[in-house]
């Protein structure tokens, strides 16, 4: 009986190929959109305007509180670095290092969910990996 169930669960090559095709189809749609969204949030015209506004407010606050000019500028540079810390995020993703930034796991989960949705539409069940 066990063997029969296993036989039923085993996918045909055509089904496997269809599953792989759906995965890549979803990836080719979702990944560029996600990357574009992330880049636009920091390196677009609107982002430049918002970050400029925020940096200017930060700098003015520091000057008004009596901070020396050089210190105020350095702190504002560090402040800008917080907005644009994508470099660390993408670099760590590429090298496979673990990190605790929520956004990276959220992006991965989002991609996974989209793939599952597409597969479910096609009636292909995804086997869950046991950790």
């Amino acid at each position, binding site marked *: 009986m066990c063997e029969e169930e296993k036989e039923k669960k085993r996918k045909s*090559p*055509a089904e*496997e*190929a269809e599953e*792989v*095709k759906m995965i*890549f*189809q979803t*990836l*080719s749609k979702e*990944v*560029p959109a996600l*990357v*574009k969204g992330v*880049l*636009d949030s920091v*390196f*677009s*015209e609107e*982002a*430049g*305007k918002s*970050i*400029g*506004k925020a*940096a*200017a*407010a930060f*700098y*003015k606050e520091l000057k008004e509180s009596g901070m020396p*000019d050089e210190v105020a*500028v350095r702190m*504002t*540079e560090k402040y*800008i*670095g917080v907005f*644009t810390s*994508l*470099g*660390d995020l*993408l*670099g760590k*993703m*590429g*090298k*496979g290092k673990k990190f605790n930034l929520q956004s990276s796991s959220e992006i991965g989960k989002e991609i996974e969910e989209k793939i599952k949705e597409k597969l479910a539409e096609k009636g292909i069940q995804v086997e869950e990996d046991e950790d």
Partner: protein
Amino acid sequence: MKPKHLISVVPHVVKLLLSLGILWLTLDFKFRKAKKTFEKELIRNGVPKEVAKRLSKKYEEMKNQLKRTVLSSMRGFP
């Protein structure tokens, strides 16, 4: 999986790579506009011109750092 099944995946892989390539190539162009707007906004909000130039250089450094990190992480792939 037979080779004929893998062929159906190729267009999607090509599309993915092309999309990412276009994003990479247009990053510098988009960034130039972002940097101009950033500097203008700083000056408009009372930051001295020299300080605004220095901060926009830092903004550019961040963009260059991102590109370097992405390239070095790609080299790390098997």
